[in-house]
C-alpha cells in the first residue's frame, strides 16, 4: 500500500532512546483541484472555497498524503480515463486525483466525489455526500476520513475533538475547553471559576480534576458539557482521572495522609479501591485499550518511571529504564505503543515505545514537551510544548517520526490536551 518508513536513526549519547533525524517515509501525492460547481457560481465563496480548503488541509495534514500544488486542471478535464488526460495529471507529480463536483438546491449542498488512481486510470471509489450549506466543511472532513480509510485501511481523525485546559479567559483560573482536531472552533465547556486539570474522555463521558470546592476532586460530565457532577471519595488528593475504555471505571491518583497511590472507583461514584500500596508516589494512570492493564508513574526506584500493572493492581512491572524522569504515559489506540514524557537532563520530550519490544524513539527535541495523547486513528500525537518560561501551547505531530509539527493554540496558556476517541 503506502511506502514504508525509511528513517535515519541515531543513537543518543545517553543510550536507550533513538532520535529520528532524517526524512520520513514517502507520502502519497494527491491532486485535489477545486470543487466544481458550475451552476452555483454565486456560492463560490460559501461552498467551493471552504470545501476545497478544508479537504486539502485535511489530506495534507494526514501523515499518509501530500497534496500537490496542481490546483487547476492541467488537461482542462477531470475525465482521466484516457492515457493522455491522466498523463497530464501525472506530470504534475500527482498519483491520485480527488475529483469533486457540487450542486446546491436551496440551502442544501450535494457533493459527488471520485477518487482516481492515475497510473491505472481506475476509480478507487466514488461517493455522494449531502448536507446543509453551512456544514460544507463537515462534508469535506467526512470525505477526507473516507479517502484515508480507502487508501490506508484506517479511518482519519478529521471529525475528532481535542480537550484541553486554558487560562485564556483571564486570571489564574483554568477552565476546560474543546476544539476541532485542527485547532479550529475552540469552545468552553466549564464555568468553575477555579482550577481545572487532567481531562480525559471515553465512551461519551468526560472526567477532570476541579478545585471548584477548594480541594482537588474528580468531576464527571457528558461529552457536551452537560450533567456536571463531583465524585466524592473522602481522599485528600483526587487527580489525573482516567476513564476505562468502556467508561465504567475511573482510575486516578488519590492520596490519604500524603501517600499518593493509584485508586479506581466506579464512573458513577463509589466502589473505591486502592490498586497500588507502595510508600512511593504513584500518579498518571492510563488504561490499555482492552481495559485489562493500567500504565502509571511511580517513583519507587528513586526517580519517576513508567510502570504497568493488571487492572486489579497485580503484576506491576517497570517499563522505562532510560533517563531520570519518565511520566504521563498514554496508550496508543491499538495498544501496541505507548507515548510518554521522557527526560534525561534538562527539558521533557515526547517518546514513543513499542510496548512489546521496549524499542523507543524520541519525537521532539526543542523546548519542553509533555502530556502526549493519541489521535483516534493512532497516526498523530497531540502534546503541550513551551520554550523557556513561556506559556504552554498545544501541538500535533506524526506519531511515527515526529514530523508535521503544527501549533493549534495561541493566546494564554493552553495545556493538557487529550484527543477524544
Amino acid at each position, binding site marked *: 500500500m503506502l511506502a514504508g518508513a525509511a528513517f535515519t536513526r541515531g543513537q543518543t549519547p545517553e543510550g536507550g532512546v533513538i532520535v529520528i533525524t532524517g526524512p520520513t517515509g514517502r507520502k502519497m501525492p494527491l491532486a485535489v483541484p477545486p470543487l466544481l460547481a458550475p451552476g452555483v457560481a454565486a456560492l463560490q465563496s460559501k461552498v467551493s472555497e471552504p470545501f476545497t480548503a478544508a479537504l486539502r488541509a485535511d489530506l495534507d495534514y494526514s501523515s499518509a498524503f501530500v497534496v500537490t500544488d496542481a490546483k487547476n486542471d492541467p488537461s482542462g478535464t477531470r475525465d482521466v480515463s484516457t492515457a493522455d488526460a491522466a498523463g497530464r495529471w501525472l506530470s504534475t507529480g500527482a498519483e491520485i486525483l480527488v475529483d469533486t463536483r457540487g450542486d446546491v438546491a436551496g440551502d442544501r449542498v450535494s457533493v459527488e466525489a471520485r477518487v482516481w488512481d492515475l497510473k491505472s486510470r481506475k476509480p478507487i471509489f466514488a461517493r455522494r455526500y449531502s448536507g446543509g450549506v453551512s456544514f460544507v466543511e463537515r462534508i469535506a472532513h467526512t470525505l477526507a476520513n473516507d479517502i484515508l480509510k480507502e487508501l490506508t485501511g484506517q479511518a482519519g481523525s478529521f471529525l475528532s475533538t481535542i480537550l484541553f485546559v486554558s487560562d485564556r479567559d483571564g486570571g*489564574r483560573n*483554568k477552565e476546560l475547553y474543546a476544539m476541532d482536531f485542527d485547532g479550529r472552533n475552540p469552545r468552553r465547556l466549564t464555568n468553575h471559576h477555579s*482550577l481545572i*486539570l*487532567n481531562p480525559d474522555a471515553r465512551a461519551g463521558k468526560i472526567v477532570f*480534576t476541579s*478545585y471548584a470546592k*477548594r*480541594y*482537588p476532586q474528580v468531576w464527571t460530565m457528558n461529552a457536551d458539557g452537560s450533567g456536571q457532577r463531583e465524585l466524592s471519595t473522602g481522599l*485528600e*488528593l483526587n*487527580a*489525573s482521572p482516567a476513564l476505562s475504555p468502556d467508561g465504567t471505571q475511573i482510575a486516578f*491518583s488519590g*492520596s490519604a*495522609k*500524603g*501517600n*499518593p497511590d493509584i485508586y479506581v472507583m466506579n464512573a458513577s461514584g463509589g466502589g473505591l479501591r486502592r490498586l497500588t500500596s507502595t510508600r512511593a*508516589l*504513584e*500518579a*498518571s494512570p492510563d488504561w490499555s485499550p482492552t481495559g485489562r492493564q493500567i500504565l502509571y*508513574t511511580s*517513583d519507587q526506584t528513586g526517580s*519517576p518511571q513508567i510502570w504497568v500493572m493488571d487492572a486489579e493492581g497485580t503484576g506491576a512491572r517497570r517499563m522505562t529504564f532510560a533517563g531520570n*524522569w519518565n*511520566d*504521563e504515559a498514554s496508550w496508543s489506540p491499538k495498544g501496541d505503543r505507548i507515548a510518554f*514524557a521522557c527526560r534525561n537532563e534538562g527539558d*521533557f520530550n515526547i517518546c514513543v515505545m513499542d510496548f512489546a519490544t521496549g524499542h523507543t524513539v524520541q519525537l521532539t527535541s526543542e523546548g519542553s514537551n*509533555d*502530556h502526549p495523547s493519541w489521535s483516534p486513528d493512532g497516526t498523530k500525537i497531540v502534546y503541550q510544548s513551551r520554550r*523557556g*518560561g513561556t506559556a504552554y501551547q498545544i501541538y500535533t505531530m506524526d506519531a511515527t517520526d515526529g514530523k508535521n509539527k503544527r501549533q493549534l493554540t495561541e493566546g494564554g496558556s493552553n*495545556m*493538557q490536551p487529550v484527543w477524544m476517541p
Partner: protein
Amino acid sequence: MKRNSTRAMAVIFALAAALSFASACKKKPPTTTSESKPTTEAPTRPGETQVTQPTTRTPDNVQTEEIPADLAKLNQMGYLQDAFYDYNKADLRDDARTALSANADWLKKHPSTQFLIEGHCDDRGTTEYNLALGDRRANAAREYLTSLGVDGSRIRTVSYGKERPFCTEETESCWQQNRRAHFLFTAR
C-alpha cells in the same frame, strides 16, 4: 558538598537578615513585618524566613497579643512560616523543621485557629506528578506539626502542584521559592 555550601550561605543570609531585623525592631513592632509573605519581592531563602518571625518575643507577649479578627488580615500578619523543600523531595530539611517548630509554638498558643497547608512545587516536573508531590509536601508538614502537639483536626492540606507559583523565573532561586508548604488560616 553543594548542599553544605548552600546551607552555609543560608546561615550568612540569616545572620544578615537578623541584624537588619533587629534594627527594624527599634522602629516598629515586629508583627508588622511582611518579609515572610510569599508574594513579596524579598527573597525567601529557607534559612532566612525563620528570622522574619517575631522569635524575639517572649511567650507571654504572644499570649496577650490580640490577633486580627479578620481572616484576610490574619493571613497578612506572617505568623506562620512556610517550609521549603529540595527538588523532587518531600523530606523536611533542618530549616523546614525550624520553621515548623516555630509554627507549632504559635499554633499551640492560639488553639482556636484552623488552617490549610498548601503543597507547592517548582515547574520542572509534570503537572500530574507535581500534584502528587505537593500532596506529600503538605502532609510532611502536617505530620511534623502533629508530632509537636498541634491538633490534627485543625489542619487540612491541599496540593496545587506547580499551578500556583510564587514566582515564574527559570532560576534556582525562583524554583526554591516554589518548592514549599504554605500556610493559610481558614478560621480564627
